[in-house]
């Protein structure tokens, strides 16, 4: 079948020289365009020249402004010709040139004449051209004709006007909205496409009026829509109405569902599919509602048309993520799609099967996939690998066959992203399925023996160092690791050295052999490798001789770096070489979310913001420097946390004040950032009078006034409170800004001698429990969780009542606790009914706290929450529960 085509292609190649546009050149064609000016127009010749010009534009050639104007004016001459072909080409050319406003005027009258011509084809095209190039003043002139055209009996003319209306609505919505009577009439047109275009325009005109859209849908779903395209539109609008109405009604029959279901029996596949898709996307769709949609999609799966199969499997794939059981009926059909010619379809089939598969079918499925993997592109392979990973986590007992599969594909050819996806999957499986550890590590070792990606090698070596020593026979990994030191580049060698050291520290029996290997590394050609070897040798050997520091060494090697890398980097940059060694405890631990917040409000100039906008990356450092520069606060000890600024005034008031709460062990300092926004005033002796009557455990110790606050240059005043040491005391404070105001002559900038005392009420501020919590993430939550004493765990359940959504509840709880979400668990997938969020933080007194909080939401939006807290101190665990119970 394919033979004759191939042959034909060959023939063509030989005579490739021939093309009507061979050797075409812009300059020459522009010269040729002079024929447009001929008094005796040769219509045929002119069309040919326009075709050439269009060909050039189509190939990506561009005309300069001058050239375009010249061509445009020449083309306008061609309206003289009565030749129909030429006229069509002129229309095309004008649209392509998209003339400027002053040029448009030249053709307006010609086009308006065509709009009212007797030839329908002229009218339709002239409308489209004119609407494309028109502006609002011109539009009001032709509005009358357009309204007529919408209800014209010729469908082509009506469609042209309606489609133009859709485009014009973007720019001249006021004018187009006046046409809604005509458009409404056109919706009833007998011509299929007119109905489609009219419906699209009518909906866009009314889209912001929910009631009108609902009425439109109600009347049309009764069955006057004939065109399949219009039917598709109506389905879309119907699901929009369902979406919006479902927010109000709680239970019961879904409105318009019958209509959607009836569309499943439409004769056009386009409509059937649109309806099936709409049903699967209904929010909170029930399995009873899904069944008829799944049934038609299942029929599509065995269609001879690839497009139909693709559309069906893609939709089923989405359904399988939320309702895997509803799709299992199609499993047999999907299995046959694995061998589909179209690889997109095959990949979708496989990933859907992986989502719906049950434990017994896993082995068979893996066998089928193995054959399939060799002939698809990397991007598809990654999708499959990820699906397999989640399947394996679902059926941990099947890890053996899946691990084998992963190791097999790891050995085959593939790009970095693909290999990374496989390695990541193996690592995750090792972490979550203890039985899979040894076999998984072994596969990774095999892989680094022949791995071309430095990044992956170092990742694996690091992982091996953490997990390898805990296996039954750690010694078997040493060979693989030391091979890296012999064979690889410096980066990999350095990580191999670190890995060796970890084995040495953990496995006493291996220590002497590790020392031998590390000593060999002392002669490496690379600095980093030698340095690491020296460092590790010293720490490990001294530990052996002195004894008792074993824990320290392990901590050094395995302990997480409990400061964010960015903070460490800034601290190191600021560190000046001197006799005082760099102290890692001086690095702030707060995770900075500041840069993000800055990005969100880029346009918000610091009108009312007292906080210095400089250097958002080092806000915490800046605060610490600022506070330590004030002698009164030096006795408070180390700053535990600075909260982000909170506004105490409405935006654009006379004085803008925000407050930053600084928490110390036994003190709290409020830093009021004040900005004076009145040019005619100078404020002096600015203080904040704080009433702490609603904060019993706090007592004011000192106030540091701001001597002078000139216009638009922010300044700070501080108030310090004492509180019980290490106790997360809470309270509410009301604030009153007090100052002496002096008039300033704007001309000279000089202030009056005399000032008047004045005050200004600020909003209240609160110290809440979250203020005592530092957002500190952990890299591996599971390990961290297991390392904390289970005896300190406190679990309780809470009913939270009716909430809008799960996502909202989760973020509210995170806010109350003020902790750092780990492993991306702050994101709640759409439509999920339960969610587990992992949080970590450091509570005042440097107590590490981990929280595992699970949420569930039922049909009536009742949210329940189970909160498990582990910390280094059982009292703190209790405390966290108190915070939540109060919040």
């Amino acid at each position, binding site marked *: 079948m*394919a033979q004759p*085509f191939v042959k*034909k*292609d060959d023939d*063509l190649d030989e005579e490739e020289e021939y*093309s*009507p*546009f061979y050797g075409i050149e812009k300059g020459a064609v522009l010269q040729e365009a002079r024929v447009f000016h001929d008094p005796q127009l040769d219509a045929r010749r002119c*069309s040919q020249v*326009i*075709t050439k010009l*269009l*060909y050039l534009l*189509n190939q*990506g050639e561009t005309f300069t402004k001058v050239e375009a104007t010249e061509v445009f004016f020449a083309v306008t001459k061609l309206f003289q010709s009565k030749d*129909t*072909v030429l*006229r*069509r*080409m002129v*229309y*095309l050319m004008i649209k392509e040139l998209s003339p400027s406003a002053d040029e448009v005027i030249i053709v307006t009258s010609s086009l308006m004449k065509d709009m009212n011509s007797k030839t329908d*084809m002229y009218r339709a095209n002239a409308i*489209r051209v004119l609407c*494309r190039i028109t502006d609002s003043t011109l539009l009001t002139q032709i509005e009358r004709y357009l309204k007529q055209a919408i209800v014209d009996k010729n469908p*082509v003319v009506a*469609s*042209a006007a309606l*489609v*133009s209306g*859709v*485009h014009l609505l973007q720019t001249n919505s006021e004018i187009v909205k006046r046409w809604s009577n005509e458009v409404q009439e056109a919706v009833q047109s007998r011509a299929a*496409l007119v109905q*489609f*275009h009219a419906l*699209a325009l009518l*909906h866009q005109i009314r889209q912001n009026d929910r009631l009108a859209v609902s009425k439109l849908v109600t009347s049309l779903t009764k069955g006057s829509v004939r065109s399949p*395209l219009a039917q*598709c*539109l109506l389905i*879309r*609008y119907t*699901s*929009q109405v369902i979406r919006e109405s479902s927010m109000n009604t709680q239970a019961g029959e879904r409105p318009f569902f019958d209509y959607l279901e009836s569309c499943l029996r439409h004769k056009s*596949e*386009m409509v059937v*599919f*649109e309806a099936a898709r709409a049903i699967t996307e209904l929010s909170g769709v029930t399995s009873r509602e899904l069944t008829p949609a799944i049934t038609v999609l299942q029929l599509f799966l065995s269609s*001879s*048309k*690839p*497009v*139909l199969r*693709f*559309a069906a499997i*893609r939709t089923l794939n989405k359904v399988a993520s939320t309702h895997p059981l509803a799709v299992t009926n199609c499993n047999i059909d999907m299995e046959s799609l694995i061998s589909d*010619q*179209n690889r*997109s379809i095959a990949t979708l089939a496989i990933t859907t099967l992986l989502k719906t598969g049950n434990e017994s079918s896993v082995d068979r499925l893996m066998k089928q996939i193995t054959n399939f993997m060799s002939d698809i592109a990397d*991007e598809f392979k990654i999708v499959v690998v990820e699906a397999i990973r989640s399947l394996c986590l679902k059926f941990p007992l099947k890890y053996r066959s899946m691990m084998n599969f992963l190791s097999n594909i790891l050995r085959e050819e593939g790009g970095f992203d693909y290999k990374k996806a496989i390695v990541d999957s193996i690592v995750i499986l090792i972490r979550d399925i203890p039985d899979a550890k040894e076999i998984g590590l072994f596969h990774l070792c095999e892989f680094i023996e022949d791995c071309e990606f430095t990044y992956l090698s170092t990742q694996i070596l690091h992982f091996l160092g953490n997990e390898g020593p805990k296996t039954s026979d750690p010694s078997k990994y040493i060979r693989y690791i030391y091979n890296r030191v012999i064979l690889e580049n410096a980066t990999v060698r350095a990580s191999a050295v670190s890995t060796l050291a970890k084995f040495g520290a953990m496995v006493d029996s291996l220590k002497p052999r590790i020392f031998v290997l590390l000593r060999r590394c002392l002669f490496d050609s690379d600095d980093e490798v030698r340095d690491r070897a020296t460092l590790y040798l010293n720490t490990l050997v001294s530990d052996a001789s002195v004894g008792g520091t074993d824990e320290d060494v392990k901590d050094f090697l395995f302990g997480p770096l409990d400061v964010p890398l960015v903070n460490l980097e800034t601290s190191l940059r600021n560190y000046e070489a001197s006799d005082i060694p760099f102290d890692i405890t001086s690095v702030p631990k707060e995770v900075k979310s500041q840069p993000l917040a800055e990005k969100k409000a880029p346009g918000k100039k610091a009108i009312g913001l007292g906080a210095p906008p400089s250097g958002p990356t080092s806000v915490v450092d800046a605060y610490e420097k600022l506070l330590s520069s004030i002698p009164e606060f030096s006795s408070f000890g180390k700053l535990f946390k600075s909260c982000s600024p909170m506004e105490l005034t409405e935006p654009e008031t006379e004085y803008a004040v925000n407050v930053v709460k600084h928490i110390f062990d036994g003190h709290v300092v409020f830093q009021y950032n004040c900005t004076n926004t009145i040019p005619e005033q100078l404020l002096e002796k600015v203080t904040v009078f704080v009433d702490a009557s609603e904060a019993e455990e706090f007592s004011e110790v000192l106030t540091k006034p701001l001597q002078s606050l000139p216009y638009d240059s922010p300044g700070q005043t501080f108030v310090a409170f004492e509180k019980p040491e290490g106790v997360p005391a809470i309270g509410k404070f009301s604030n009153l800004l007090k100052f002496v105001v002096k008039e300033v002559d704007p001309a000279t900038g000089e202030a009056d001698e005399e000032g008047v005392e004045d005050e200004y009420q600020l909003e209240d501020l609160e110290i809440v429990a979250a203020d005592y919590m530092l957002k500190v993430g952990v890299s591996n939550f599971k390990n961290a969780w297991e390392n904390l004493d289970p005896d300190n765990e406190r679990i309780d359940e809470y009913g939270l009542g009716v909430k809008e959504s799960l996502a909202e509840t989760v973020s509210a709880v995170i806010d109350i606790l003020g902790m750092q979400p780990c492993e991306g668990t702050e994101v709640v997938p759409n439509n999920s009914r339960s969610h587990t969020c992992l949080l970590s933080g450091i509570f005042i007194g440097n107590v590490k706290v981990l929280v595992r909080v699970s949420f569930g939401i039922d049909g009536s939006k009742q949210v329940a929450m189970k909160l498990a807290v582990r910390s280094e101190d059982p009292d703190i665990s209790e405390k966290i529960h108190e915070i939540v119970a109060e919040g």
Partner: protein
Amino acid sequence: MAAPDSCPSIKNILLLDSEGKRVAVKYYSDDWPTLSAKLAFEKSVFTKTQKTNARTEAEIVMFDGYIVVYKFIQDLHFFVTGGDDENELILATVLQGFFDAVGLLLRNNVDKRTALENLDLILLCLDEIIDGGIILETEASIIAGKVATHGLDGAASLSEQTITQALATAREHLARSLLK
């Protein structure tokens, strides 16, 4: 990105040759603002699809958040692109309309050479199918009719021609599906 409750929209229509070079292309969205972005898109569409057999039935591929339906004949490759939440069957209908209309206009001599010789017809055909991303017409005989009433040979004979042609195509389709 188009909202799911909006009008179906077409992002581009491409007609490329067997080496991936342009015969005629038309873009309706700003997703590819520059010529080089357009050419890069065409190149990746072409390379992703060239090994497939899209000669009997339209094929489909999804990448970079676009859905592309395509069909080949002789040394011509037809493509229609939509956003990734578009109804695939609507895109396929547009493709089929374009494909068949070109067949009618070129009287079943659909290859690159004839297409270039009749480039004016191809461009008018594109103009009659989509207007600024909105589907104008999908019925091949109507599209071809609109283009050809202005054809060189005069209107009367052509409308007849169209019908005979349409019948011929239909027969051919039938024969093909029987052979398969």
